[in-house]
């Protein structure tokens, strides 16, 4: 059950964007899809939602391909930076169209969210600012009866208050509906606490695919004098280094060896998801 992305490959003008990407999305989880600009996140989401075609591979929902199947596509909603709604249509009209095409729509909840965010539903979509366009699309994303909701840069143009409100509403919606959310964003620190599972894409490949808790258990910062840190980290998977005066830090991703003796001069701290992401993607960049 769930969505399976199987060996997706995609090239644009001979440039490889996605190379053999495979991942699984289980029902009722919040996923993070992270990657630097140009990593292929939006391309992958567009392929899952059938907006563009992959060169090879398949996207399967509950065992059947989603390609050109209304039933499967009706279970997927992609909110993206692209504005695909008619510019001249009023927000309330687009709510009606969403009901028409998805089969149902929670008007009460949509209007409640519009009130909370201060969105005028009589306004035309084309007249909205970037922030309010995001808010409008988020309202649809939270209200639409799709089981899998993909949010590509959902907080684009949103101020801090609206971002807070969105995270609260997202969690509230998740608890009530048990939908699957996939969030792709660059503001990693803000979403770390709500993610259960994370995928990190780098150069069109999935370099991390795992439960956030498990991943963070393997992410460390070893700090201290350079020589002591170097001795302690020998044989470990060093994904980044940092120095501040005489203090040196090594970022490690992987299990620490319990038999290793930790010198008094060296400290071991947990790394946050953003640091892990930055170091991992920098390392992958360096490899290329």
């Amino acid at each position, binding site marked *: 059950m769930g969505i399976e992305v199987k060996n997706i490959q995609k090239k644009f003008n001979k440039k490889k964007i996605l190379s053999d990407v495979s991942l699984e999305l289980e029902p009722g989880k919040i996923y993070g899809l992270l990657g630097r600009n140009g990593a292929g996140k939006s391309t992958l989401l*567009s392929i899952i*939602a*059938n*907006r*563009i*075609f992959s060169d090879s591979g398949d996207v399967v929902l509950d065992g059947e391909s989603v390609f*050109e*199947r*209304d039933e499967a*596509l*009706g*279970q*997927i*909603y*992609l909110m993206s930076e*692209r504005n*695909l*709604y*008619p510019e001249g249509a009023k927000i309330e009209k687009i709510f009606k*169209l*969403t009901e*028409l*095409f*998805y*089969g149902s729509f929670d008007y009460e909840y949509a209007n409640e969210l519009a009130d909370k965010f201060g969105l005028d539903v009589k306004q035309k979509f084309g007249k909205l600012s970037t922030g309010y366009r995001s808010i409008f699309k988020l309202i649809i994303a939270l209200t639409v009866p*799709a089981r899998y909701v993909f949010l590509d840069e959902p907080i684009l143009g949103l101020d801090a208050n609206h971002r807070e409100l969105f995270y609260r509403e997202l969690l509230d919606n998740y608890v009530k509906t048990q939908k699957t959310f996939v969030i792709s964003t660059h503001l990693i620190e803000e979403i770390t606490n709500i993610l259960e599972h994370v995928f990190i894409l780098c150069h069109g490949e999935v370099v991390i695919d795992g439960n956030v808790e498990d991943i963070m258990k393997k992410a460390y910062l070893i700090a201290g004098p350079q020589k002591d840190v170097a001795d302690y980290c020998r044989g470990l998977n060093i994904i980044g280094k940092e120095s501040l005066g005489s203090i040196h830090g090594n970022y490690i991703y992987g299990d620490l060896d319990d038999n290793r003796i930790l010198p008094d001069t060296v400290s071991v701290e947990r790394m946050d998801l953003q640091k892990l992401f930055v170091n991992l993607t920098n390392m992958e960049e360096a490899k290329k």
Partner: protein
Amino acid sequence: MMTAKEVSVTNYFFKNTLKKLGYILIWIIFSSLFFPWVFSGFNFSSISLRSILTDTTLGPVLSILISGIALFPYNDFKLLIQSGISRKTFWKARILSFLAVSILGQLIGIVVGLLNPYTNHSWYGSSLYMQVYGKYFGSTAMNSFMGLCFILLSTSVVTVGAIMVGSIFSLFTKKARVYIFIGLFVMAVVFINWISAAVQNDYMLNIIKHTDSFLHFIVGYSGTNARVGAWNPTMPFIVAVLTGVVCLFGSYKIMELFKIKNE
């Protein structure tokens, strides 16, 4: 059998096309009153209702307008792919709704013609078919029935053709479309120029003769003895059906390639 989604999308296209059509018709009515009024020195009494109604050929006008609307599918595609609708459903709904609007338009055109006292309650004047083939069968009822069938068939073919042409252009970005239009225009100018020079050449004259014969064949012209009005309509029917099938298949195959463009 149509699924609930197919019905919803077809209804949406049908209503949306009628809305656009109504909007355009209001502008046409306004323009056909406004310009005579302005050019007659802002004098309402000089506007002749009789002349306007005599010249009204609603069927062909509606056919052109509907085909024009059918030329622009991309915005609808964007909305529908955002709303979880497949390309196949998009194509099916678009074909069905536009055919329904086209057929409805022609039937309205005929009814308006029959009700119009200034056209002697006849729709023949606005029907090229009736003028060319309307006396082929001995029975007037049969000729009228075949005329009605041909109008509905040919309008449907024109509409489906417009859907196919619109689909082809929707595959390209706005920038590419501009280059294609410029390219086609230049090619047309060069072609006209070339053909006017080439007609003096025997080989070209031969090709033109063959083209002329072919055109006569597909319109059902059977020779100089054939009386205009009594040409054989079999070939036009066959050509219309074949063109319709090709356009239907072509538009489906092209819409299968639709995707969200980076523009």
